[in-house]
């Protein structure tokens, strides 16, 4: 196979990453992070429904500072994933495809996700 001998130039430090690319990587990274949280969610739901003791245990777990910090990061990931997903859906329907608007909406996702995460985190 001659194709295997083609030169490959993949020095990541030499690439320019526009905001839309960073936001898109964030969409993937947040998705993978949330997948890792699925077993924890199953554990918490099962424990909370196991009985009054389990319900109290879940309250204790969710009150710990470490878990709160982890859940804040997951909440941020979720909102980033949701907003970026809505943006991708709109682009699927040919809305906001133009470079300028796509850059603006990518910036909006990057800013809105952590801001919303803080607001919702304060309520919860």
């Amino acid at each position, binding site marked *: 196979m001659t194709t295997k001998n083609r030169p490959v130039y993949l020095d990541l430090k030499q690439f320019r990453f526009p905001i839309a690319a960073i936001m898109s990587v964030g969409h993937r990274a947040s*998705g993978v992070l949330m997948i890792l949280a699925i077993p924890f969610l*199953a554990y918490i739901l099962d424990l909370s429904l*196991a009985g*009054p003791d389990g319900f109290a245990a879940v309250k204790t777990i969710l009150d710990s500072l470490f878990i709160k910090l982890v859940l804040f990061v997951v909440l941020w990931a979720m909102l980033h994933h*949701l907003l970026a997903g*809505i943006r991708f859906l709109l682009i699927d329907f040919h809305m906001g495809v133009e470079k300028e608007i796509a850059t603006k909406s990518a910036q909006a996702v990057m800013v809105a996700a952590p801001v919303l995460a803080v607001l*919702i985190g304060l309520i919860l």
Partner: protein
Amino acid sequence: MSRQASGLRAWALQRISAAYLGLYLIYMLGHLSFNAPESFEAWRTYVADPGVSIGMLLFVVALLIHAWVGIRDVLIDYVHPIMARVTLLSLFAIGFVGCGLWFAKAIFLASVAA
């Protein structure tokens, strides 16, 4: 599953499941923010409501489909040695099915006990 979840079908599944997940998450965040269950009995009664149970089970199905299509794309993009890829895909598939059964058990038992 892999063959069913590729190409146009995976593309469509990802978007349909995304719509349900997004709407459900907004509802759940609102519910937990303003109507958080105070006691075990209140929580179990809420989950045992048929509308809530079915909504939750649908959420689990949509979540696992969405997670499977997503992780499959990521692994195909970044993990090239075929044995490593197949091993990781298998581990995620088994993990997802296991978690799905775990969720289902919790939701069903809440309905039976109430």
